[in-house]
């Protein structure tokens, strides 16, 4: 199979798994206070956004044309 398809598939599944785990971690820590917890929440959230981006890239919705 095409290497790109393998990479994309792994990325797709990985994005879902990692994104879900990140969201669960975010939900658990939602009410935590303190500079470290708030920074962690922000960074985890941005990372979850990254997973969403990878997901959409893997299914071809976003990305350079062609």
């Amino acid at each position, binding site marked *: 199979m095409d*290497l*790109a*398809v393998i*990479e*994309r598939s*792994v*990325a*797709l599944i*990985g*994005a879902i*798994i*990692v994104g879900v*785990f*990140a969201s669960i*971690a975010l939900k658990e820590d939602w009410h935590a206070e303190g*500079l*470290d917890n708030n*920074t*962690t929440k922000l*960074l*985890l959230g*941005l*990372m979850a*956004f*990254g*997973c969403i*981006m*990878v997901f959409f*890239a*893997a299914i071809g919705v*976003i*990305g*350079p044309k062609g």
Partner: protein
Amino acid sequence: MTTAAVEHGHGHGDGPDHDDGHEEVIYQETRDMRLLGFVLFLCSDVVLFSAFIFAYLYLRGTIDEWPPILNGHQLPRLDLPFAEFNSIVLFGSGVTMHHALENWKHGKVGRFDFFMGFTIVLGVMFLCGQGYEYSHAAIGGWSGSIFGASFFTLTGMHGFHVFCGVAYLAILWWQTKKGHYDQTHYFGLTAGTLYWHFVDVIWVALFFLFYIF
């Protein structure tokens, strides 16, 4: 505003045996200072990457076609599928690091060990992936064009940060083995986790800027 503790009775004269609570408060204060200092350091590091990202966007804005034309031919775009894969490796390591810290806080050292090791392995995998990407990117090299200049400089700086992060996590792990931290005193682990998440988030930006945009 300092969160100085109000002592019961006067400030002086408490013997050492009454000072245990005071020692904990001293640690909390020191930890808070170190945490603020570390977060401020991360903020200044964000500025470093932002400046180079500005340079990339500015230079890209000076030409009509992207990727730019080198020696009469337009350069190819980067390998998006591979980058998707490598990105998930790095994002996954962020989640595993989070779980490592959580397990440490709850005293589950065995599970901490597992997740810490997993994180370091994923970090090294990411670096190897970048090495593969560098050897296969046919964009005219570091000095060929503004494409190579911005891509290799930015991802190179990021890779350097990841490398330092892997070294830092390895040292932290070794320190836990030596009993340096316990369930109340573990600021080093907190700092390491925050640094690792930071490195992760910078990659979110770089992935978007070079592979999607």
